[in-house]
């Protein structure tokens, strides 16, 4: 048995999920989106990763450049992805949307800059 909160709408139903063989039973959802959410969260939960990488020669006081994964990646790979990005350094100038790191954690997803950073 597993409990989770559905975040598909502001009601935030408390879901109780039971697995019998391959079949998944969901209780506590006030609508069918709750069940879909639970099944997806159980089978393949994914998230957008947002973090920062070092930037050299950036304008002003910025030591870090904010970045994100351009698509969701499996939740279990977030930690691995963070490790891959730990040593990454980029040089200014950078444009919002520029690719900073390709194929993160072997997912085929790219890490992109989420702001412009001009040169000093």
């Amino acid at each position, binding site marked *: 048995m597993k409990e989770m909160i559905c975040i598909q709408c502001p009601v935030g139903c408390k879901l109780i999920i039971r697995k019998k063989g391959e079949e998944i039973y969901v209780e506590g959802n006030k609508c069918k989106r709750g069940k879909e959410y639970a099944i997806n969260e159980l089978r393949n939960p994914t998230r957008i990763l947002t973090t920062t990488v070092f930037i050299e020669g950036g304008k002003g006081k910025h030591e870090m450049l*904010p970045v*994100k994964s351009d698509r969701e990646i499996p939740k279990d790979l977030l930690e691995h992805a963070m490790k891959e990005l730990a040593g990454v350094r980029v040089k200014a100038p950078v444009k919002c949307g520029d690719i900073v790191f390709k194929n993160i954690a072997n997912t085929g997803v790219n890490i992109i800059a989420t702001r412009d950073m001009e040169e000093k």
Partner: protein
Amino acid sequence: MALSSSLARLNACWRKKMRVDVAVIGGGPAGLAAAAEASKEASVVIIERNEELGGILQQCIHPGFGNFIFGEMLTGPEYATRFIEKVRAAGVDIMLETTVLEIENKKIIASGRNGIVEIEAKAIILATGCRERTRQQILIPGTRPAGIYTAGCAQRLINIDGVMPGRKVVILGSGDVGLIMARRFTLEGAEVEGVYEIMPKPGGLMRNVVQCLHDFDIPLHLRHTIIDIKGKKRVEGVVVAKVDENLKPIKGTERYVECDCVVLAVGLIPENEIAKKAGVEMDAITGGAIVDEGMETSVDGIFACGNAVHVHDLVDDVTIEAELAGKMAAKYVNGMEERKGLLKVKAGKNVRYVVPQMLRGKDIETIRFSFRVKKEMENARVVVKAGEEVIAERKERIVRPPEMVKILAEAKKIWEIRKEVMVEVEEV
């Protein structure tokens, strides 16, 4: 003595002066949207104390911005970028690293890179955002070691300066800022021992509770608080305890938690020092300026928007409110402002506050009331009344204190009745 007075004289004759239709104080999302809108009908300057535009958004690197306005979950910097490009394209004058010190009769005194600047504006928009409550304001006893940060300060250190404030962290407060930081610390490899919340319910949005805490198995301790901070030079630990109904610590429930960093996410208060000095009337509950339906304050020609008026959970609402302020400020400058009278807006059953707090009968067809409830309620009916008459109503499946509620009402109906307006929430 002689030197400082001659410097002062020198400064006085170097004092740069400028004139503009609309001066916007603060270049966060509120200031940017207000400036872009006002610039359609007037000359505009943005005065920002930081070295760049974007306000708090530049350090909010997580996704969750713009779902309503753009239909996508942008990060803070991405959301800011869109509006920075907009004000640049509109030809808005931008003054960075310039701090507004005071406003006297529509004259703004600011201090910038090249000394003091005087800006004479026909209308002023206050978009100064908010600041964080600190330890002094919540009275935690104990020593004063290093390692205690407000959440916003920790966020800036990690996301902009690239400095980790600690390795084993305790977070006090479960508002959105606290939740977001719990995830951020964890992703960066620190251990978040737990989030402690004095109230019986989390203070932030549900999606943040799930995606910031549950995703990383970070415990949330409701009805708990920090009663002592230990450590001489550096934080060594905290004492936490359960609280009773009156939020007083319960004897015998104390527990020592080892940590090297305490993050205080104990709330935000509108930043209004300059507004107060300018004689703008404040709302004791929001901590922000009292405004009318066009975001004009009690002082003619001074407008306010964003977190300087009331603390928002969603930036989209900030933008909508700020665009209105910008539009109405331009109207004021062009002598197009209309007024029909003055009506008060009151917070009724289960409503903590309502913005706007007053109506002046401006030429706005639909009035947007934003408010927060006192307590959670399922199957709620939101009602706007003028006198005894209901002029707008809507059902909500659930209302919660952390989520701002909005309801639209027709201005014409209100002015036909011309009685005090009240916003209420009741169970059905």
